[in-house]
């Protein structure tokens, strides 16, 4: 079971993230679950590109010629920045909802709007 431990961690993080999104009622906690899910995806992308005994693909004083795949790391960088952007917009919406309705409970907000 230990030969692909990072993938098992990916499954556990995915389950935790989706569970938080489904079960929690607070909007801020739902966004935290979304970020956990983003971390799961990033870890999966990085783990797919790992090569046995490889180092980071940077040639400055590189100790070994075996390097991991660089493209997944570049895509993961893109994914992290877009995650930051969406989190900023979602938190702004959460603050506006709290200011307008006085609560961050999704069910209370749904009842208020009918």
């Amino acid at each position, binding site marked *: *079971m230990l*030969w*692909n*431990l*990072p*993938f*098992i961690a*990916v*499954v*556990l993080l*995915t*389950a935790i993230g*989706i*569970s938080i999104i*489904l*079960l929690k009622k607070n909007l801020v906690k739902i966004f935290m679950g979304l970020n956990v899910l983003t971390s799961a995806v990033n870890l999966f992308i990085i*783990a*797919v*590109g*790992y*090569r*046995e005994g490889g180092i*980071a*693909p*940077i*040639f*400055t004083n590189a100790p070994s010629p075996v*390097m991991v*795949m*660089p*493209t997944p*790391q*570049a*895509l993961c*960088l*893109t994914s992290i*920045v*877009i995650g*930051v*952007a*969406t989190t*900023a*917009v979602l938190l*702004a*919406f959460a*603050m*506006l909802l709290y200011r307008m309705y006085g609560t961050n409970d999704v069910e209370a907000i749904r009842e208020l709007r009918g």
Partner: protein
Amino acid sequence: MRRYLSVAVMLILAAFLMFIVTGLTFGNPQYADMDDYFIQNGQEQIATNNIVTTIVFDYRGFDTLGESTVLFTAVIGVAMLFRKFTGGEYDEDE
């Protein structure tokens, strides 16, 4: 009731994903021709030691252009959401 249903669905989904994941091999990617090309030729073509930066800004430069645009748009959206609502209808912030 809905809570238990959610937990059951999550357990089934986690078991399904775990079943898929146990078949993957870790540490030995099969199709790495493109990445080997980048590692072999990146230094001579772009004259950069950091291959990840080479891919982010040169081989996939359009990707980064879209990424910067997404970040810019998100900041503009946050600025638009937090303008002052009191005062006139089109009141400027500050």
